[in-house]
């Protein structure tokens, strides 16, 4: 069953035509990785789904049209978003960052603290003073507090130390078993570990959809992503 469907989505920002007819689907309970070189429109796609950029075309979640819907309504319909640069609230404490994200009557603090026990001990610390990895934990935790039908996660391991990449990847792998997820990620090892489908974008368009097994093909990786598969 199709969960999220994008059909001929276009986004133009300050005269630049960023997304040029993006079409793809994210099936229910699957983890789909959105891949591509830098600047091809992956993050813009997530922002367009979230209503953070004005889009044309059609974006539906469980057959409900999202284009033209306000961001907070989109989130309340079950979509959760972890942005590329974490965008935690630096002047608020860890606890305040998490409280702000609470939507359900019984937020899942047990899940959050079991995945990231560090956040419990640092609950009174200002989020701006956390390390990059800890900030990413806060950003991911904000979406895990509530029951969501689809998670949009943008480069969760970007700029993290290898040890923290593993920690974040473990958390995502645990969550991925029970969630529908659209994941933008450059770290191919993580993609191979959690993704069940991959979508490759180039110049604002989808140029490939298929299984993650394609990422084992060195030539495919080099051609589609411009990198060596073995090094990621």
């Amino acid at each position, binding site marked *: 069953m199709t969960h999220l469907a994008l059909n001929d989505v276009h986004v133009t920002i300050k005269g630049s035509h960023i997304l040029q007819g993006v079409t793809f689907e994210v099936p229910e309970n699957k983890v789909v990785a959105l891949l591509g070189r830098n600047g091809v429109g992956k993050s813009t796609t997530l922002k367009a789904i979230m209503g953070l950029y004005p889009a044309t075309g059609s974006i539906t979640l469980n057959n409900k049209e999202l284009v033209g819907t306000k961001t907070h309504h989109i989130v309340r319909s079950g979509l959760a978003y972890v942005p590329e640069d974490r965008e935690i609230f630096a002047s608020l404490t860890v606890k305040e960052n998490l409280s702000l*994200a609470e939507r359900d009557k019984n937020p899942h603090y047990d899940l959050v603290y079991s995945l990231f026990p560090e956040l419990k001990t640092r609950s009174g610390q200002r989020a701006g003073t956390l390390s990059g990895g800890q900030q990413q934990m806060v950003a991911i935790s904000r979406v895990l507090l509530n029951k969501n039908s689809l998670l949009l996660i943008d480069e969760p391991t970007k700029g993290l130390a290898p040890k923290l990449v593993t920690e974040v990847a473990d958390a995502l792998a645990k969550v991925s078993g029970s969630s529908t997820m659209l994941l933008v990620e450059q770290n191919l090892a993580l993609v191979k570990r959690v993704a069940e489908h991959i979508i490759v974008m180039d110049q604002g368009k989808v140029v490939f959809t298929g299984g993650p097994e394609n990422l084992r093909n060195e030539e495919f990786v080099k051609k589609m992503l411009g990198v060596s598969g073995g090094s990621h």
Partner: protein
Amino acid sequence: MDTFILIAVTGIGLGALYFLVACGLTLIYGLMGVLNFAHGIFLTVGAFFGLWAANTFFKNGSTIDYLLSALVGGIGAGLFALLVELLVMTPLYDRHIDQALVTVGVALVVGAMLSGWFTNDMRMLPSPAWFMDAVQVGNANIPKDRFMYIAVAAVLLILFIVILRFTRIGLIIRAGVENRQMVSALGINVRLAFSTVFFLGGLAAGIGGVLVASYQGGVTPLMAGSWLIYGFIVVVIGGMGSIGGSALAALMIGVIKQFANYYVPGLGDFVIVFLLAVVLLIRPQGLLGKVSA
């Protein structure tokens, strides 16, 4: 020493009034990025609501009646500010220059309407009789009304801090000042925070309007001009978006202005503009403001 006490206390009283004007301005700018030139008219509208309440319901000139009139002035101005936000600001969401321009328009139109309706004559606002008395500290006779201004400003400062620190809407406002888009991306209607901030800003300005009317001898449609300018100076010196910064800057400005005017009459305004220039050069984000990313 007596002169020092007199000037310091009257300066703090003046600073209290500046704070009441500035606290709404700083919150509105901090959250929405809007320079709200209509804020002065909130002060005027509040003073007229207070005058109406004092002449209609609270006529016996007691302290309680005065405070209730100030509260009516605050609520009236708060509702007026909310109306301005809903009717004028909302359609221009995220168009900051247009929003600033339209607030100038609101100030001019509403100011002209009030002038047409009430004329520009000063109207006496009933105040408690003890406002005319002075309390002796050492050999200094300090006007008692200054203590009322200080007390009201302190109560509002505490109220704002409590709202911002300990309530969910305060949490949303603080987060919205930092990153409005991300607040929406957490499923929160950030517009609700805008409306709350406009109401609170109008409330403080309205209460300030009633107190300013007592300070300068009455209510007139032209009363807000220099107060709004000082409100902006307080906001810039204190740091845009910082309530604590506004309180600190308002106190500094009130006291420094009084001292400057005591030693060289008329020097106060010049010294404050000089102080503004120095702060902008040394610490452009203001005393307690944050550096923009």
